[in-house]
């Protein structure tokens, strides 16, 4: 049996647990509340006002002006998430983090029946509450699909278990979009074929599904029956990332080319640093930006060879930016890399200058490993830092304790 443990409104709940006066009140976690941005998480008390994650902060303040707006702290949430994983591995080593606030827990022979799995789930749920003051909703099932979908049935602090028959009984009357992995576009295509519910999908002819959706067609039909053979991958075995990226919502719409390029340089440097730290090289660079009319554009370009160099990533990101940007104010900008590999299989260092550049990167990485990420940054991004003084989830200055008293640069 498998559990999917989903922390209820995780970021907001952590703040309520750490700051008891926030309990029972509408709490909205965001970037710097004095600047604009988006809602990162809303407590259950804030949801009746219509506040949702991803909503612009201005709209949230209009809907729920009396909420407590708390600047989020990713280090804190990751720290608590790791402490939760430590708790789960006391029950079984088969723990697969699914996101910062969700994890699959494989019970294997410890729980041969649904009833035994429910007992263990209940104990874990109580321990999460006792040790962390946090609520969790848990789904229980014979596979990851059923556990994941069951976890969303009763929230917050729910505990829902299905076998395959129970899964079909509960989900078949519901809209097909509730099925894990079926997004709005896929659901629309299904509806055009007369498939509106999970049950319709389960009963649809396999040939129709294969003809319409290719190889995933039969898999979707299996999923509608609650069947899933996706293995649980314990996190000590690790799973490689598919992409690495950073993005930032600017404090105000920006049409200044130098500021935008400085931002791109800083983001490229962060992405390259993470790529190297995690032992990857990348073959694809992508640029994302959203203009002041909330139009989002994403473009990517493949490189001739793999790289982990911020200058190469920035060069491509800048070219993509110059192609896409029409001079209108920009609200959000992001850089990511994909096509990740553990080692470059191509010839990346033909010349001595390449080797010198690599040696320099390694030296700078050693400085950062020792003194922290803000110890060395590209000079071209300093203007951006002065202009914004703020990166997602906190100012650069505040990342160094006591730094607020230091003189501005």
């Amino acid at each position, binding site marked *: 049996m498998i559990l999917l443990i989903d922390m209820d409104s995780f970021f907001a709940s*952590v703040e309520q647990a*750490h700051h008891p*006066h926030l309990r029972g009140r509408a709490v909205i976690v965001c970037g710097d509340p004095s600047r604009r941005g988006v809602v990162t998480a809303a407590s259950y008390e804030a949801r009746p006002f219509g506040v949702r994650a991803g909503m612009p902060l201005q709209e949230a303040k209009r809907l729920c002006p009396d909420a*407590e707006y708390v600047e989020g702290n990713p280090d804190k949430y990751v720290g608590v998430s790791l402490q939760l994983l430590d708790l789960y591995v006391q029950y079984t080593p088969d723990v697969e983090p699914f996101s910062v606030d969700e994890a699959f827990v494989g019970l294997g022979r410890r729980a041969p029946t649904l009833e035994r799995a429910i007992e263990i789930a209940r104990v874990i749920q109580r321990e999460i509450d006792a040790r962390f003051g946090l609520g969790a909703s848990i789904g229980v099932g014979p596979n990851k699909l059923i556990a994941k979908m069951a976890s969303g049935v009763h929230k917050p602090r729910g505990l829902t278990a299905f076998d395959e028959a129970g899964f079909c009984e509960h989900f078949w009357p519901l809209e097909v979009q509730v099925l894990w992995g079926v997004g709005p576009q896929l659901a629309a295509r299904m509806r055009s074929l007369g498939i509106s519910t999970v049950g319709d999908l389960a009963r649809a002819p396999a040939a129709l599904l294969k003809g319409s959706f290719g190889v995933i067609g039969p898999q979707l039909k299996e999923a509608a029956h609650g069947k899933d053979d996706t293995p649980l991958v314990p996190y000590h075995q690790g799973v490689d990332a598919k992409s690495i990226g950073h993005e930032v919502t600017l404090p105000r719409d920006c049409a200044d080319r130098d500021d935008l390029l400085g931002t791109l340089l800083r983001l490229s440097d962060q992405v390259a640093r993470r790529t190297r730290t995690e032992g990857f090289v990348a073959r694809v660079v992508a640029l994302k930006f959203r203009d002041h009319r909330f139009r989002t554009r994403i473009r990517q370009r493949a490189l001739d060879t793999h790289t982990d160099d911020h200058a190469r990533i920035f060069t491509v990101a800048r070219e993509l930016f110059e192609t896409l940007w029409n001079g209108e104010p920009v609200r959000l900008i992001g850089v990511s890399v994909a096509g990740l590999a553990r080692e470059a299989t191509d010839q990346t260092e033909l010349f001595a200058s390449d080797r010198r550049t690599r040696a320099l990167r390694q030296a700078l990485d050693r400085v950062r490993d020792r*003194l922290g990420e803000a110890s060395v940054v590209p000079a071209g991004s300093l203007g951006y830092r002065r202009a914004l003084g703020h990166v997602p989830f906190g100012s650069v200055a*505040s990342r160094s304790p006591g730094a607020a008293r230091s003189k501005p640069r």
Partner: protein
Amino acid sequence: MFETLNDPVDVLTAFTDGKLEPLRFRWRGSVIRIRKVTGRWSRREGQALLRYFSVEGPASDTYELCYDPRGPRWVLNRAWTSGNRE
């Protein structure tokens, strides 16, 4: 709202069973007794492991303290006291 401070503070600290536990701290001329540690987490900055504590003081005021081993020193990062509640 939280008040962001990053004020260096003196903290009476217990080191027991390999654990670090703040007991009380001096801030703005007052000694604040910590009633309860409500949360803890850590963050690596270069080689240094910074330890953070959410703590509850009298009258349900809450604070976030950071122990930086490079000093060593304590820093009061944020406070939410009855004085700054809205």
